[in-house]
């Protein structure tokens, strides 16, 4: 049986990423398996930002001169590209933030503003409930803890089952008439589990709750469509999808955004300002206080274009294949316990594992000596690790430029790690 030819020209893709030519030391080429923490940038993204900076750079939305118009066009065109990439019905629903973290904080703070003119379904108050899951990244957990603390609302959570998926057994009692928000991840950054978003959207709708989807780990790896998913808000980070740091996106349904109070305040988000009071602009401007990440928006749009040109379905297929290969290889090694579901359609590419109780720092250290860059620790999902009695795991995550032989190197490296520590004891 011959493996089907990848629709990917992997060699050409690898040539797009200058950092892949780097050697960690003269003998050790880089095998970057940490795209889950931050992705590398293709030349196309870097070039787009540099071209903007050396040709059109100016403040956006504030100037009447030609350079300012060129910059504003570049910024707003970027918003359109990003909107299309995410499946947003309108670019006016796309708020440019600093990161996924800031996007989620924006929603949590705005819902808890205490502004009494805001419609009830967009306010979280004492007695209300906020539902999250036990597999959330801290970015989609701590802001909700804080919202609960500030408002007197109660935080509840959907547990994770032994098979590393959400345990929906008690969903009916977890979602109540008091539930105002269900916040969940689209794809776990530790387990690789894709969550049953539709099911939760349905549950939320049945009680009039809002859904907030953390797409930081899904948007770079599969075709996403916020409108089709049916959620109310979604967040992504530029730096995890081959774009710059310093930029993230909050997508929100326009009717919600239009009724929500601002979070950050300052220039460019106002309508009128007097010394003692101000009124605020329409979305998305209302949520973009101050000078935005301008060149970063241009870079992120270039990243969207790059992914679109590869085709998100092809990207997903490529990474599924790598994930399958890794799971097969790793589970065959004695002492390796994969922390995540077995292969399947709802199982994507973050492969975390425990190595016979050996501390992940030590595992990562040996792999690093082989040039294999993986992440170790709790990956900002501490409660999830606690759930499985772990202090941390070692995580490999795959990118468009990852090759099957890099996955094989990982598998071999893990086997050598076991030998290494075995030989020392």
């Amino acid at each position, binding site marked *: 049986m011959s493996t089907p030819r990848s629709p990917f020209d992997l060699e050409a893709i690898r040539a797009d990423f200058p950092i892949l030519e780097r050697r960690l030391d003269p003998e050790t080429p880089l095998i970057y398996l940490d795209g889950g923490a931050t992705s590398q940038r293709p030349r196309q993204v870097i070039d787009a930002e540099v071209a903007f900076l050396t040709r059109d750079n100016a403040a956006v*939305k504030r*100037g*009447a001169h030609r350079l300012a*118009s060129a910059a*504003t066009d570049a910024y707003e065109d970027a918003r359109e590209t990003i909107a299309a990439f995410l499946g947003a019905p309108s670019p006016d629903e796309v708020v440019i933030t600093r990161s996924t973290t800031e996007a989620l904080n924006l929603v949590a703070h705005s819902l808890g503003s205490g502004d009494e003119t805001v419609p009830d379904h967009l306010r979280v108050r004492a007695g209300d409930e906020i539902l999250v899951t036990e597999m959330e990244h801290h970015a989609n957990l701590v802001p909700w803890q804080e919202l609960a603390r500030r408002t007197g609302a109660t935080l509840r959570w959907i547990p994770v089952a032994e098979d590393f998926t959400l345990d929906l057994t008690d969903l009916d009692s977890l979602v109540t008439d008091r539930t105002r928000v269900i916040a969940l991840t689209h794809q776990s950054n530790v387990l690789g589990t894709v969550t049953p978003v539709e099911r939760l959207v349905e549950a939320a709708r049945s009680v009039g709750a809002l859904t907030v989807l953390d797409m930081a780990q899904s948007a770079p790896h599969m075709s996403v469509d916020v409108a089709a998913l049916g959620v109310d808000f979604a967040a992504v980070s530029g730096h995890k999808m081959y774009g710059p740091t310093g930029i993230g996106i909050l997508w929100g349904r326009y009717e919600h955004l239009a009724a929500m109070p601002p979070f950050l305040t300052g220039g460019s988000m*106002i*309508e*009128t300002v007097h010394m003692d009071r101000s009124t605020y602009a329409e979305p998305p401007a209302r949520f973009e206080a101050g000078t935005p990440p301008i060149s970063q928006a241009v870079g992120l749009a270039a990243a969207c274009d790059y992914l679109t040109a590869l085709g998100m379905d092809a990207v997903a297929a490529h990474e599924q294949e790598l994930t399958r290969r890794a799971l097969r290889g790793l589970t065959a090694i004695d002492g390796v316990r994969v922390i995540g579901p077995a292969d399947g359609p709802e199982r994507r590419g973050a492969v975390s594992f425990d190595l016979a109780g050996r501390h992940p720092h030590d595992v990562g250290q040996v792999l690093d000596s082989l040039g294999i860059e993986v992440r170790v620790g709790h990956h900002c999902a501490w409660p999830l690790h606690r759930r499985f009695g772990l202090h941390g795991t070692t995580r490999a995550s795959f990118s468009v430029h990852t090759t099957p032989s890099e996955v094989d190197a990982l598998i071999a490296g893990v086997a050598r790690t076991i030998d290494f520590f075995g030989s020392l004891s």
Partner: protein
Amino acid sequence: MSNPLSSLYTEIVMEHDKRPLHAGLREPFDAEVHHVNPTCGDEITLRLRLGADELVQDVSYEAVGCAMSRASASIMADLLIGRPVHEIQPVSDHLEAAMRSRGRLAGDEELLGDGVALLGAAKFPARVKCVLMPWKAYQAALVEARTLGA
């Protein structure tokens, strides 16, 4: 002075800027709206009076703004007064389309009248808003007048 500039500040525009038609706020009116452009602080207060069969009986306004936006308000008021709403919509649509075309769509003088003199601004993205602001105010006033009348 370079060419595009004179295509912007045409004689007609400067004339309307200096001696705007139908300016000032008058009674009676069915709806009043106040619009602000937060970027430049420009403002317009606009009143609309509709008669039978949605005939625009009066449009009165007070506008703070650049030459383009003041001229646009003046030209608009002159185009609107005395015409039925349904006749105005195509004018408004055409103007918006031409203004957003970056100069690719030539204006139809039959529809726009003096308004064609504003089309030089289509090549200056930052000025498109200035020209359209009075029209946005008219549209909002119309919605309000209809709601109140209903």
